[in-house]
């Protein structure tokens, strides 16, 4: 009897929930989205938030530009039992961490996301960019180098090892104040074969070797914390070459007309995407899933590329990438995934960094203050 009652109740609830879903009721009418601010957030606003709001009048969207400390804040929210975010934009590595800690919700990509417009299932369409069960990829970005084209003369760098060549390119360099990326480049320029880099880095000697190579230019480096730092330093002529996210460099070059050139060699490819915090109430979750299905479909991801030079994470979006919304220039050649730019790329190895990140971070910070 008891069993039957509960089955009946469940069925009734499911039916009720289903019909409520269909009618658009039972969904919260506001959405708090966490992102990175700047041009990137603007591309999300234009490509999918504004179209979504137009299709669903009455829904309001609040932005919180806290992606940089998303992991810490989500932990605090979880502890305080008060999740105020609905959807969080994070880098792939943070997405994996949040998933492992149970702070992000697991998603059935094929079930809950739209299929590709070529008929492929969502998980095939996203392919390798689904780095974790919680992670819903949006873009492929790369950490790469920009150089002052007026400060290098006729000798524009084409090789990543130019950053270690202080004779040919005198002047300061801007590097990320984290080991990730820097140690790989250091080993590559110290003569380690590309395929062996993570094996070497897994050893104590390998890590010391990478830091020793970085040590050769340590007094010439300005360490940056935020993606906006390097474009500012390049615009000031404070550094001759510096690493940052490729979209920041594109904006400095194409939108701000700065004398900066791109060095795509050995760019570090990485993914950025959404995670849904664990423990959202029913109505808010329904709204988030509705938004996600819309915002990550083939067309929307391709639209985003009209505002920023990051590649769409779906394979089916690639052919739809068009021109820049304001400047009218073809965007495909500015994508990190464009064949001409992607002759020599690194894909950040998440498994390695998941295991070694804490150790290497500590070692790197200690090395910095030596």
């Amino acid at each position, binding site marked *: 009897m008891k069993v039957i009652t509960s089955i009946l109740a469940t069925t009734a609830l499911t039916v009720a929930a289903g019909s409520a879903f269909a009618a658009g009721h039972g969904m919260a009418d506001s959405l*708090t989205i966490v992102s990175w601010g700047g041009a990137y957030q603007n591309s999300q606003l234009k490509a999918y938030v504004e179209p979504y709001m137009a299709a669903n009048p009455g829904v309001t969207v*609040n932005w*919180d530009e806290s992606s*940089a400390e998303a992991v810490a804040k989500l932990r*605090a929210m979880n*502890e305080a*039992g008060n999740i105020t975010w609905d959807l969080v934009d994070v880098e792939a590595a943070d997405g994996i961490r949040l998933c492992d800690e149970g702070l992000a919700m697991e998603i059935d990509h094929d079930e809950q996301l739209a299929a590709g417009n070529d008929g492929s299932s969502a998980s095939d369409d996203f392919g390798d960019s689904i780095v974790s069960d919680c992670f819903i990829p949006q873009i492929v970005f790369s950490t790469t180098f920009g150089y002052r084209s007026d400060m290098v003369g006729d000798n524009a760098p084409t090789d990543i090892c130019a950053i270690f060549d202080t004779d040919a390119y005198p002047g300061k360099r801007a590097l990320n104040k984290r080991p990730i990326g820097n140690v790989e480049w250091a080993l590559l320029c110290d003569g380690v074969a590309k395929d062996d880099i993570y094996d070497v880095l897994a050893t104590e000697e390998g890590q010391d070797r990478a830091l020793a190579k970085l040590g050769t230019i340590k007094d010439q480096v300005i360490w940056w914390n935020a993606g906006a730092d390097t474009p500012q330093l390049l615009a000031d002529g404070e550094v001759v070459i510096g690493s940052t996210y490729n979209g920041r460099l594109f904006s400095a070059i194409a939108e701000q007309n700065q004398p900066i050139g791109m060095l795509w060699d050995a760019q570090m490819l990485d993914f950025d995407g959404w995670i849904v915090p664990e423990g959202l109430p029913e109505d808010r979750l329904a709204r988030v899933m509705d938004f996600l299905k819309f915002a990550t479909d083939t067309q929307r991801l391709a639209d985003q590329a009209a505002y920023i030079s990051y590649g769409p994470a779906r394979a089916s979006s690639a052919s739809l990438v068009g021109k820049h919304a304001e400047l009218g220039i073809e965007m495909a050649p500015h994508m990190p995934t464009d064949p001409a730019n992607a002759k020599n790329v690194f894909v950040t190895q998440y498994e390695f960094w998941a295991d070694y990140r804490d150790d290497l971070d500590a070692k790197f910070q200690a090395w910095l203050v030596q």
Partner: protein
Amino acid sequence: MTLTPARKMPLSFTLPVVGASGGFFGLFVGTANGSGLMGVVIGFLMLAAIAYVVVNVAGKTKEKPARWALVALFIGLGVLLGGAPGVVMGLLFGWFAGWFAYFIGFGRYRQDLAPYLTSGQVLWEYAFRILCGAIFVFLITPIIVVMPLSFNAQDFFTFTPEMLRFDPEGYSLKHYRDFLTSSEWQGALRNSLMIAPAATILSVGFGTLAAIGLSQPHVPFRRAIMAILISPMIVPLIISAAGMYFFYSRIGLQGTYFGVVLAHAALGIPFVIITVTATLVGFDRSLVRAAANMGADPVTTFFRVQMPLILPGVISGALFAFITSFDEVVVVLFVGSAKQQTLPWQMFTGLREQISPTILAVATILVAVSIALLATVEMLRRRSERLRGMSPG
């Protein structure tokens, strides 16, 4: 008023001193043009020569034409070395060179000082003034430097070559336009303007009452209560913020407008207590008894007798409380949520994620508004003092 008669100084004193000032400025001009040492030498020789001409050839009788000629000469030099911005620099240098040569050469620097001072004391007097000036410059430059940058036509915190040439192309109001049209900035401004006054009213209300209560001799544990109320000022902000975050989350105040107002009021109360307590020290308690004697109840006494007398303390406490809330970023980052983003929050994330001069435009506007606000309060205060006959001005 002249304390000491000015007299012409010997050339052996005038030439090195004026020359040294030339060397000092020459160092900067020389470094900008390639060689610092050359600049020092040329600057020294040039100003020494000027001093000689001014003191021995032009003299006091032709002071005006001599000084104008110097200004013209330096403007010419400025154009030669630096183009349009050189005109401004030349004008300033020319004026300074003429003034300084006469100031030293004819002993005018002693005019306003007592005649019995030794040369060492005179030197100290001027060193002291220069030191004070340097401290002032050190305090004010970071604020001043921001203002021209906010008119930058580019999206970077950089003085572009166009700006340094005074080319109108290099300047633009676009960052101001961005501030006034962007919904994010306008939302932040609205939030700030909603939160700060509400927090101020709460702080002033509670702070004033607490100060009055704590000034009554019969209240038990006065010192302990005072210490607790003042503690938000002393405890590191980040600790208060983290504590408030977890506490407010439990009781459902985190991420609400009222929660942020309450948190800011807690931060503002100590300022009000301190300023009001200070004015209460000079308050004559027999006035309260006199009012009571004449039949006024305590509330009437408070508003008609006590309040007008402690008003200056209340107002300055209110100003501090307002500024505390208006400038506060740490607590609001914890206690607020995306819906309560205030101006400082927006500036903080803006500086980290995108170095945009819109922040500088906002900063410039805020500086202008604060100057206007403080000037108004000061003028009102003087006016009321004048009306009440408290000051002769």
